[in-house]
């Protein structure tokens, strides 16, 4: 196969995945919680400013286990009205501060933490800057790196930028086959690199954002296959994710806390490619 057609195929593939990851009918965090958990108590608010509907979380019983877990994820809407309310999952600083509160809650009560990543990118507005978007994300990342309970993160749709990583530092990182995980949304990257947002498909390919790419680059641990795209058969996708989560949790719970934290540190410590002369 010629290089051109390989590139073309990669472009098509990456961009097709972006389209799938953005499907409004694709299951979102609350759908996962609904199917995989019982007795969910949603926790609200950052105790400082407001409750951000773009991030949801709480405590629940994980079905198929006798375990109470804490859960937090980005929440997109499945229609325009809900998306407006939830700001398309683009969390504000108070959303990340709510997430951090839930993380600390998990640690305090020794509850394993599940996170779901589904965010085009953290909100880039004036108000978010005024309330410290960068700091809020950094605090989440810092909290997760040292949280003394097992963490399983799943990229279920768009894993976009720092806003995704704010919930993405985990002992096991799972990713759905049609999800994407990127340093910047392809649209933003195209604006920066091509000075043209219409080049998003090319940017998507250049940045290598598919689940296969993430696995090859050592950024995720496992791909959860979608024999049928998740928006066509949500319950099947959720079931598959649930199995992968339970499997990962069983292993992580067997570890001593210090061992868990050391392994988490070394996992992220090892990511990156360089050479030494």
């Amino acid at each position, binding site marked *: 196969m010629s290089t051109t057609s390989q590139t073309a195929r990669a472009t098509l593939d990456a961009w097709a995945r972006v389209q799938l990851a953005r499907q409004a009918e694709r299951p979102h965090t609350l759908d996962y919680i609904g199917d995989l958990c019982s007795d969910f108590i949603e926790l609200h608010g950052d105790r400082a400013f407001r409750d951000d509907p773009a991030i949801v979380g709480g405590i629940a019983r994980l079905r198929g286990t006798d375990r109470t877990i804490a859960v937090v994820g980005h929440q997109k809407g499945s229609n325009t009205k809900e998306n407006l309310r939830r700001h398309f999952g683009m969390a504000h600083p108070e959303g990340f501060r709510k997430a951090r509160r839930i993380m600390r809650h998990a640690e305090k009560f020794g509850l394993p933490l599940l996170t779901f990543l589904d965010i085009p990118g*953290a909100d880039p507005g004036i108000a978010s800057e005024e309330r410290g978007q960068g700091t809020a994300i950094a605090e989440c990342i810092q909290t997760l790196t040292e949280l003394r309970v097992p963490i399983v993160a799943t990229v279920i749709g768009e894993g976009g930028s720092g806003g995704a990583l704010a919930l993405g530092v985990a002992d096991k990182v799972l990713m759905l086959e049609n999800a994407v995980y990127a340093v910047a949304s392809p649209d933003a990257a195209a604006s920066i690199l091509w000075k043209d947002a219409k080049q998003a498909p090319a940017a998507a390919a250049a940045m290598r954002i598919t689940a296969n*790419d993430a696995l090859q680059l050592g950024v995720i641990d496992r791909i959860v296959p979608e024999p049928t795209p998740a928006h066509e058969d949500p319950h099947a996708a959720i079931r598959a994710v649930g199995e992968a989560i339970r499997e990962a949790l069983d292993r992580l719970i067997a570890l001593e806390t210090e061992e868990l934290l*050391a392994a988490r540190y070394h996992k992220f410590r090892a*990511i*990156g490619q360089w*050479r030494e002369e």
Partner: protein
Amino acid sequence: MRELFRRQPRFTPAAEAENAEVPDNLFFKCPQCKELNYGKEFQEALRVCQSCGYHAPLSAHERLTLLLDAGTFREWDTGLRPEDPLGFVAGPPGKEESYRAKLDSARRKTNLQEAVVSGEGRINDHPLVVVVCDFGFMGASMGSVYGEKLARAAERAVERGLPLLTVSASGGARMQEGILSLMQMAKTTAALGRLGRTRLPHLSLLVDPCYGGVTASYATVADIVMAEPGARIGFAGQSVIEQITRQKLPEGFQRAEFQLEHGMLDLIVPRRELRDTLTTLLRHYGGASPKITTVTVEAREAQALEVRS
């Protein structure tokens, strides 16, 4: 090591296009107030405009010269080189540019191998670890080498019981290394978290401009977060915010003074006072006995791993 010092550029005004007609760096035209500063006085003022207080950019080595006691800097990890993990090529048709080509031109332009310089040195005789960005090298974007250098510096600070100062000016995560760059945010934050658990301070100085993945990771969760006057600091870049919100940005938006007012900084430190402020801080933390806890963290971990194997 020695040739690294020789390569160190002297304090010369930035060769900006608008100064190009002024010969021999006799003058520095302030981009903020347009006043002319005499080159020599401008250098003596640490490249701060004598008229309006504008803090002109410094290269990493200029910053280190200004910051550290003369001759005390020992650079670390000079052999780390970036790779091209994605085989990255991007840009408008006919203007495609590969990551490798960008790296080559950044190397030629800055005479550096990467966007951060790390090592140990002294400030008024207080030993510390320093990690300094050079914005001239691809906007000091954070890729694998940046992350690795910073993580190693933090780990060595723990081993040696030294405080750590980061001086960050960055456009954010390096797009050309894709998701690997995003993960450097976790890696650096984790490494500096370990430093914190040994009760060694991380002092963070944000300088113009500091954005994206650097603002959203290690640089803003330090024990002390400082900025130079007027530095632009934020998560999203101003043009992005303008495009998306279609709002005119308020005067002084994202400047250090704005960030201080909104509670995101501990203090704004003019360049002239930087060494004194850092000296005072280092003296305050000097009483801690970090070695004991250092051993404990490592030992606990080793023990935990031993139990399993």
